[in-house]
């Protein structure tokens, strides 16, 4: 049920990587997790081992069939991914048009998944303002705004705080928090930006992820960072963030809830 949006005003901050690894972290803790890709780049699936040539996704089907859950792929135990898929330009425009104009379009597509008990959904979005983010934000329980530890990202902080990402407050349930990516204490700017963010945001800064080449290598290997390099500093930080996310969303593993298997048409 909980829906988390991972977004950012800026591109190239590592949203997709954070989304994927956060999904893995939550799955490792015992939840069933679904990662949805709202970005036409279609990069999220690669983190889950989907071959480059595999262009399956929900967008092409979404325009006709109402239930997007048919396009979900399994990615290991308790891990599911809903890729954007290969689309033509017209399909993309049509999809965005429906998102922007049909207020029930999104709801119809995701209702099966949203109503599945105990399923944590994490969604990845394109950078900056975009129709998908605007539409999904109204349903989201939590937003994670990802930034890099540099001044280019930092300069967009007012952008978010002034609600310019979707033109209205980002999240109206548990709120929005920040995740600072690729922080390197050995580098002057990185250290200063991190310190500033910690001071300025306080508890709104959910976590700081250490700059770690293992993340890029894990991506290249199409594995989760936890499997690729368990000792990775970034993995530790992401795990810590996932714990905080779970706490905010009230996800309690070990309270006796029983999760039945999610049936998918593929695999």
């Amino acid at each position: 049920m909980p829906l988390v949006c991972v977004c950012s005003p800026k591109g190239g901050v590592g949203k997709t990587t954070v989304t994927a690894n956060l999904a893995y972290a939550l799955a490792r803790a015992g939840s069933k997790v679904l990662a949805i890709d709202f970005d036409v780049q279609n990069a999220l699936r690669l983190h889950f081992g989907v071959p480059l040539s595999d262009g399956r996704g929900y967008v092409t089907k979404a325009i006709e069939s109402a239930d997007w859950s048919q396009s979900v792929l399994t990615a290991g135990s308790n891990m599911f991914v809903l890729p954007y898929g290969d689309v033509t330009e017209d399909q993309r425009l049509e999809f965005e048009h429906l998102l922007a104009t049909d207020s029930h379009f999104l709801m119809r597509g995701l209702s099966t998944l949203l109503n599945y008990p105990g399923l944590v959904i994490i969604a990845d979005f394109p950078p900056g303002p975009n129709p998908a983010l605007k539409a999904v934000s109204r349903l989201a329980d939590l937003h994670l705004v990802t930034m890099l530890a540099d001044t280019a990202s930092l300069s967009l902080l007012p952008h978010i705080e002034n609600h310019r990402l979707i033109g209205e407050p980002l999240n109206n349930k548990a709120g929005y928090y920040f995740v600072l990516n690729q922080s390197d204490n050995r580098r002057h700017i990185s250290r200063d930006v991190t310190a500033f963010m910690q001071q300025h945001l306080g508890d709104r800064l959910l976590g700081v992820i250490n700059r770690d080449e293992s993340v890029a290598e894990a991506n290249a290997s199409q594995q989760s960072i936890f499997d690729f390099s368990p000792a990775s500093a970034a993995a530790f930080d992401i795990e810590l963030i996932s714990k905080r996310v779970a706490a905010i969303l009230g996800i309690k593993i070990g309270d006796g809830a029983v999760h039945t298997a999610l049936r998918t048409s593929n695999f």
Partner: protein
Amino acid sequence: MKKVLFYLLLLVLAPIAVLIIITPMDSQKQYIFGFISLAILFLLGFSKKHSVSIIMMLVSVLMSTRYIYFRATQTLHFNSEIEAILGIGLFLAELYIWVVLLLSYLQTAFPLKRGIVPLPDDTSTWPTVDVYVPSYNESLEVVRDTVLAAQCIDYPRDKIKIYLLDDGKRREFAVFAADAGVGYITRNDNSHAKAGNLNHAMKLTKGELICVFDCDHVATRIFLQATVGAFLQDPKLALLQTPHYFYSPDPFERNLSGGKNIPNEGALFYGPIQQGNDNWNATFFCGSCAVIRRSALEEIGGFAVETVTEDAHTALKMQRLGWKSAFLDIPLAAGLATERLVLHVIQRTRWARGMTQIFRLDNPLFGRGLKWQQRLCYLNAMLYFQFALPRVAFVTAPLAYLLFNLNIIHSSASLIFAYALPHLILSIYLNSRMNGRYRYSFWGEIYDMVMAFHLVLPTAVTMLFPKRGKFNVTDKGALLNVGYFDFSVVRPHMIVAVLLAVAVIAGIVRACAHDYFGVDPNVIALNVGWGLYSLVFLLAAIAVARETRQTRKTIRIDVDIPVVIHYASGISSRSNTLDLSMGGCRIAVPDDRHLTDEIEEIELQLKSGSISIPVQVIANDEQAIRLQFEEIPLDRRRELVRVVLARADAWIHPPKPQDNPFRSLLIIIRCVFDLFWLTWKSRRENRRLRQEEAKRMESASEDNVT
């Protein structure tokens, strides 16, 4: 009302006490009496309550007084002049022990467990503090970290000023002070050593409170926030002393095989004794790790310069004027222990001389301004340092009978034994019960034995001529790069040990053929037992002179701190430290990456901030990687000090397990055994190495020839 009851009780119990003390008994009755009192005490011992300890203390006092009374009234009859001299000498030694025992009981009866007084939330009300780091001839390497640690103290920047007081007037210190951003003070002369140095600095500074750190005492960040509150709470408080904790081992811990698991030698003083003093408002200044109110110091004219232990004297002077002192038993700073036995002896000799000087020049028993409890506590501190002669007397006493057949105690062996036994056992038992976590039984004998022969002359001379003698500073921080046996320090011990060994053997021989020699075997047994007892501690004291090689300059601290390992390839992994020092660290192995990928830096993660340091791998095995820190600039070194030495909880460890007198004695015997065993082993090893070397040389020269 309570007071009336108390005096009433005293009135009733007094005659009983007198009776217990003076009633003479024959040996059989005395044995029974002693046995009963010990049995009662054993039963009482099941209760851990403090009031029970007080009762036991009173019983111990009674038994000891009974013994002294017996000795005074019945055993002082001698047949010759020489016996009289030696006999009275021994009695005086035992009288000294009795006085010190009484005073110690008084001093430590009610240890005051003081807590931290919190500072108010509004930092603008906090007093200004001047931190002094006096130095004379110590190396900059040692002093540097002390100054950097002082800079890490959590206190408002505008309210703390740190000063490096350099009596050596060294240029590198001046440069360092400017670089680090602390004050630098020198003076034209070096009169009155450290006290003069501090007084000179007082003229140039203005802080309401003065905090003194010896040049090797690194403070934790919480030092001022834990101590200054008390000064705001009590306007009459002049001094707050904190323990001198050592993070490097002292000669006893290093050189004795059993030394590492026992409480440190200073733990008794910086525990029950100062806490006991605190109860009677008699805590005295120990020269470092303390905060003093400037106005109190000014009232007494600055730090005392008349004696070589200017610290204790300063506190005494302040107390005479009605100021109060306090002791907080939490280690908030740490320093380096004396590296070698000879340095330890030098340091303690200075303390003994200084305390004797105060005894002569500013005797606490006389003069106004002190309560009787304060007087007695100070008296005890000074009397303690007179232990040299009594101890020598004790150790050599059996020789009189065993070697020279001189009777210096006029009593049958069993009678004296019957009287002495409850006296001895009770005092050992009570010390174990009250101070067992801070000092294990019998170890005090070793500490005193090491010093005894060296202090005889200095204390005697100073007692007679208190103004003589100069201040010699203890060397701190020098590296001992080769192990050796310091014969010169224990020469007198070895001589006496040999004499005792001979005496014991002679005694045993005579006892075996006692009819032929016409001697009482019981007396021989008593003297032989006494001789052996002394011999054990003499040998243990000699064992301390076996100096082991100090292999590294920086002291390692066992601590688990999270680290991020930065590899050359850009990978960052996470692990934790196993131990840490200012020179390097050892981290747990997270995976195999370090075998192929070079570790460039590691980042230590404290909550208040992280510090990244360039490293070099020195060694690794399956469990851990050992890293050496490379050179870092001063401001980064300060952050390293913050992590390694200035952590608030760095020196707070759980107390050692409670003492068990038997186990403690066994450890000591083991140390003595190890002295011979290890010496023999290392000799054999050296011989083997020399043979190997010789063989290698031979084969090398052969190769050259061919």
